[in-house]
């Protein structure tokens, strides 16, 4: 992926979308895309465009997600679901090391992930922004993560620009969308008769050349501008960012923390659906099977963890964040404030997943508004 300026748009007829999937498969990619599953759209393998969420859109509210017909012939009208790019680069469970006894000592070997070439279509601007946040965490620190890196370099990303937003979206506030401007190989804008296609990388241009494209009509480009501008202008949710991170550091003792702590179930859903949350646990697991004469072999694994888990800040004899309100505060202050100090970017991209998938409908934009009000 390069930061090259996207090429001029070309047009791909709706009937030719399958050619994109085939062009990617021909280059050895396993192709993932948005598919309806159990009442929500998630990323999964797609072999045919018929598996995409045709004629559907979603209604999202705090704590609520429903797919419904949109009465049109679209495949990318569902903005997002609980899944993001995160599991494709930061695996929910990663085997790090294999350790086996060797005499009195042991031998530890780094395990390299089996990371096949993976193309993801239907990636939104907020998800690309989230990926660049995760790149900073896993690749640009003092200890770059080889597991993340191995998966990351295998990704081919086909973005889709958002021409409608869910009620929970606030990417405009976070300056991450609704248009994908960087970090993709190809970007699509869906219209009535097909897709405007732009390449964002050399690899994207190569794939683009395998497609039956025609120059984009002026009228289509004008309509695209209008639809993107309308999407941005009509976005319902907003988050004020000008006074972050300071406003949170000033309000660490605000009574609202107790209030939200009494509503929060500490289930960790928000951290699981968040495309940037990176907390994980590391542990040894003995390998089952034939007992070795020399002793037990084991693997060291890491698994997604959540700052809402009770044990997250637990050391022997002491829990630094014993109350749910402590843990909610940790999450929100980290996401919107200390993340900026740590990584030079907000940990929030405005995708709204934490709002939709919270079982009790806690809305961080609403919590932030309350935290700005003087406490009772």
């Amino acid at each position, binding site marked *: 992926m390069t930061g090259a300026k996207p090429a001029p748009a070309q047009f791909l007829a709706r009937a030719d979308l399958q050619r994109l999937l085939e062009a990617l498969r021909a280059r050895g990619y396993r192709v993932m895309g948005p598919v309806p599953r159990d009442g929500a759209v998630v990323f999964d393998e797609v072999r045919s465009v018929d598996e995409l969420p045709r004629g559907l859109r979603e209604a999202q509210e705090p704590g609520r997600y429903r797919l419904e017909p949109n009465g049109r012939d679209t495949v990318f009208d569902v903005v997002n679901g609980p899944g993001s790019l995160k599991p494709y680069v930061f695996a929910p469970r990663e085997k790090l090391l294999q350790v086996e006894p060797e005499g009195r*000592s042991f031998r530890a070997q780094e395990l390299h992930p089996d990371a096949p070439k993976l193309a993801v279509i239907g990636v939104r601007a907020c998800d690309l922004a989230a990926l660049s946040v995760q790149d900073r965490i896993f690749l640009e620190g003092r200890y770059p*993560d*080889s597991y993340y890196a191995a998966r990351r370099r295998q990704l081919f990303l086909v973005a889709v620009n958002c021409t409608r937003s869910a009620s929970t979206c606030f990417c405009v506030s976070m300056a991450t969308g609704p248009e994908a401007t960087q970090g993709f190989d190809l970007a699509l804008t869906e219209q009535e008769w097909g897709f405007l296609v732009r390449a964002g990388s050399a690899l994207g241009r190569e794939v683009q050349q395998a497609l039956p494209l025609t120059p984009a009509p002026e009228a289509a480009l004008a309509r695209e501008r209008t639809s993107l501008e309308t999407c941005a202008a009509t976005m319902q949710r907003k988050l004020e960012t000008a006074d972050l991170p300071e406003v949170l*550091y000033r309000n660490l003792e605000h009574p609202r923390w107790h209030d939200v702590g009494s509503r929060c179930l500490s289930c960790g859903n928000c951290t699981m659906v968040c495309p940037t949350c990176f*907390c994980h646990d590391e542990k040894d697991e003995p390998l089952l099977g034939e007992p070795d004469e020399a002793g037990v072999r084991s693997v*060291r694994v*890491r698994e997604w963890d959540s700052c809402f888990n009770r044990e997250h800040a637990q050391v022997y004899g002491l829990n630094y964040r014993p109350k749910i309100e402590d843990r909610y505060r940790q999450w929100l202050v980290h996401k919107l404030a200390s993340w900026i100090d740590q990584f030079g970017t907000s940990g929030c991209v405005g995708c709204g997943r934490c709002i939709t998938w919270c079982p009790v409908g806690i809305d961080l934009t609403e919590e932030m508004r309350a935290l700005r009000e003087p406490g009772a």
Partner: protein
Amino acid sequence: MTVRSPLLPEPAEIVEKRSYGPSIHAYRLRLLAADARPRFDFVPGQFNMVYVPGVGEVAISISSDPEEEMLEHTIRIVGRTTRVIDGLGPGDVLGLRGPYGTGWPLQEARWKDVVVVTGGLGCAPVTGAIDYMFRRRANYGRLTIVHGVKKPSDLIHRERFEYWRRQEDARVLLTTDEPDRAWRDRSGVVTELFDEIEFDPSRTVLLMCGPEIMMHYAIQNLRGRGLASDRIFLSIERNMKCAVGLCGHCQLGPEFVCKDGPIFRLTRVERLLFTRGL
């Protein structure tokens, strides 16, 4: 990639084990790979992840002198991994990766007076630093050590405190909350001893390690006597899993205690440290 994974533990053999009571042992370890020791060049206050194959890892500060060949870890037996370590002795092999984090400001403290305030069993991260200064006695001014324990049996390394007490231009004050008949030192909390210690704020550095509530009152008291925040250094404890700033557990506001700490200059953590539940 030729970069060595930061997560790979290095085998190290236990050469000697000394016990301080039933649940605290000091292990002296020799790295098995001949070329490994330079990678473990450390500053007192830094820590290693100590690994038991098939069981797990724990973050333990290094209590030996940086110029010794062997690495020493003083380990309290408190959980699953340390209980396995409890059963190990000379000849057994542990894994080490590190060193991680920040060390005590032993260069900055040169030619100055040093006050060390510690509490509870958590003094292990600082004993290595005290030894370091006594071994380079001429580089440091007056050394004052104030150490408090809940009950007398919590005082490990008694002989070390007695040894330091006998050194020139050094003062050691010990106190306990629950004195018994055999206890001949002071009673009460650490801060009650502060009236007895004399220091010149303009040439003093404070090193602290122990419960946050103790550090909170100690800071109030000593700052009230003119000690500047940028002369105060504390060792902070948090849950650590990866030690490389990736797993997220050890955060204190914007700080990752594993890499930005565990030793902090007070000015850096001042406004976060004593907020409950952070």
